[in-house]
C-alpha cells in the first residue's frame, strides 16, 4: 500500500537550467577604456601642459588638426608607406618562412641571418637608409618592411617546424610532390603561426613608420609628432600617438577577423571565445 514515487523526480521550475548571464567581453573592454580615460582626464589636468596632457585637450587638438586637414594628409602619407612595406613583408615573409622551415639546407644557410636580423637595431641604420633612398616614400616603406618582415618569417618558420610529421606523410602516401605538400598541407597547418606573426608585425610596422618619419621629419604622422614636440605642444603631439594606437588595434582585430575567415577550424580547435 505504499505510494509509488517516480524514479526520476521532475525538475522543479526554479531549478531549471538558467541562461548564463555573463558580461560580454566588449562591455568589459569599453568599461575599462572609459575608466582609464576618465582617470587620465581628472589627474591629467593638474599637470603642467608642457610635461603632460589630458584627453579633452588632446581631443581639441585632434579636432583642430582634422579641421585644417593636416591630420588626414599626414595619415594618408604614413599609411601609404605602411601598407606598402607591410604588404611586402607578408608577401616575402610567408614564402620565405615556409621554404626555410621545409629545407634543411636553407635553414642552415639563411636561418642565421633571419635570427640575427630580427634583433638588428634598425634605428641605427635609418640614417644610412636615408642616404641610400632619400627622405621620401621609399625609405619609409623600406623601414616598415625591414621591421615587419622578420617576425613573419620567424613565426612561419617555427610553424612549419611544428607541423606534425604524420600530416606530411599523408601527402607522401598519396604521392604528392614537395610543392603540393607545401601548399596543401604545410601552409594550412601553419596558418595560426603565420597569423600570429602578421599580428606581431602590425605593432612593429607602426613603430617603424614613426621612426622613419622622425628621421625624415617632413611628412606623415611622425612629422606632426616631432614638430609638436619641438614646439612643446604636448596635446598636439599626443594626437598622432593616439591615432596610431587606435589604428594598430583596429588592424589587429582585422587580422583576427581574416584569421577566423581563412582558418575557422583553428578557432574551434582551441575553443577560443572571440565574443
Amino acid at each position: 500500500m505504499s505510494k509509488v514515487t517516480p524514479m526520476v523526480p521532475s525538475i522543479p521550475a526554479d531549478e531549471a537550467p538558467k541562461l548564463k548571464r555573463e558580461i560580454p567581453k566588449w562591455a568589459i573592454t569599453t568599461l575599462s577604456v572609459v575608466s582609464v580615460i576618465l582617470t587620465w582626464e581628472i589627474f591629467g589636468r593638474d599637470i603642467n601642459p608642457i610635461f603632460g596632457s589630458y584627453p579633452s585637450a588632446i581631443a581639441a587638438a585632434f579636432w583642430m588638426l582634422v579641421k585644417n586637414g593636416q591630420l588626414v594628409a599626414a595619415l594618408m602619407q604614413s599609411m601609404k608607406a605602411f601598407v606598402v612595406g607591410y604588404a611586402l613583408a607578408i608577401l616575402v615573409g610567408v614564402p620565405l618562412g615556409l621554404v626555410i622551415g621545409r629545407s634543411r639546407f636553407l635553414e642552415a644557410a639563411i636561418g642565421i641571418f633571419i635570427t640575427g636580423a630580427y634583433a638588428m637595431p634598425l634605428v641605427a641604420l635609418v640614417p644610412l637608409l636615408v642616404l641610400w633612398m632619400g627622405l621620401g616614400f621609399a625609405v619609409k616603406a623600406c623601414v616598415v618592411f625591414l621591421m615587419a618582415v622578420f617576425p613573419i618569417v620567424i613565426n612561419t618558420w617555427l610553424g612549419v617546424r611544428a607541423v606534425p610529421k604524420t600530416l606530411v606523410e599523408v601527402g607522401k602516401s598519396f604521392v604528392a610532390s614537395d610543392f603540393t605538400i607545401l601548399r596543401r598541407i604545410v601552409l594550412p597547418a601553419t596558418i595560426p603561426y603565420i597569423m600570429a606573426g602578421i599580428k606581431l608585425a602590425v605593432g612593429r610596422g607602426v613603430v617603424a613608420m614613426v621612426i622613419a618619419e622622425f628621421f625624415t621629419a617632413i611628412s606623415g604622422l611622425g612629422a606632426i609628432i616631432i614638430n609638436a614636440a619641438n614646439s612643446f605642444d604636448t596635446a598636439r603631439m599626443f594626437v598622432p600617438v593616439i591615432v596610431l594606437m587606435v589604428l594598430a588595434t583596429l588592424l589587429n582585430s582585422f587580422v583576427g577577423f581574416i584569421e577566423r575567415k581563412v582558418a575557422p577550424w583553428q578557432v574551434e580547435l582551441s575553443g577560443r571565445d572571440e565574443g
Partner: protein
Amino acid sequence: MSEAQIGQVSMTDVSKTFTLKVDGQVQLVQALKSVNFDVKQAEIVTLIGPSGCGKTTALRILMGLESASHGRVTVGGKQVNGCGYDRGLVFQHAELLPWLTAAQNVMFGLEMKGMRGSELKETAQRYLELVGLKDAANRRPYQLSGGMKQRVGIARALAIDPEVLLMDEPFGALDAQTRETLQGELLDIQARTKKTIIFVTHDLDEAVLLADRIIVMREGCIQETINVTLPRPRGDLGALRGSAEFAATRYRVWKALHGVEAVH
C-alpha cells in the same frame, strides 16, 4: 619473377637498420632482421607483436615511407620504390587534415591521383557511403568522433582504389565497442572490395578475428606464422569469440607472443 597477381605482396630477406644518436653516441638499431613473407591477393594478414618488434616498420617499408636497408619488397610484382597508388595507408590516428571536411579529406587522395570535377565528388561520396558516413560528409574532423574519423581515414585510403590496404593499428585508440563495430565493417568492406589487407595490431583478439593468417613478430624477426581456419565470411564476430576454434587460435598466438612454444 613469374607472373604476379594484382594485390600480391612479398617481402624477401628484408632488413632495416636505424641509426640513433644517444648522448652523442651513434647506436645502430636493427628494426627488421631478414624478414620474409608473402601475401596472396584478397588475403587479410595481421602483423602482431609487442611495441618495438618491427611490425610498423615493416608496414612503412611496404608503403614506401621508409626504405629497406637490405632485401626486396614487391607489390603486384613491381618493386616498391616510394609511395604509390597501388597501396593505401590507414594511419594510426586517422590523420585527417583538420581544415578539410570529411568529403574533402576523401577527395584529397583522389585529387592527388589526378581526378577532377564531378567524378571526384561522386567517388568521394560513394566511399563515404561505403563506410557509413553519408550524412557526415560536410563535417570537419573536430566534429567527428574517433570512430568516425577512422572511418574517413579508411574511405580516404580505399577511394584511390589501391590493390593493397595497409593499416597501422587503426583501431588502437578506439573504445572496445567502437573497435568491434569497425572490425565487423572492415570485414564487410573487404568481402565486397576484395582488397588485400595487411593490418598491424597489438591486440590478440583483433589479430585472430580479422586474419586469414597471423604473423607474430618479436625483436625484428618473424616468430611464427599462424593460419586462421575460422570460416569466411565471419558474420557475427561476437558469436565467433565464443567458438572453440577462436579460443584455440588465440591461445596459439598468445603462446607465440610469449615465446612459450619453440618455433617450428
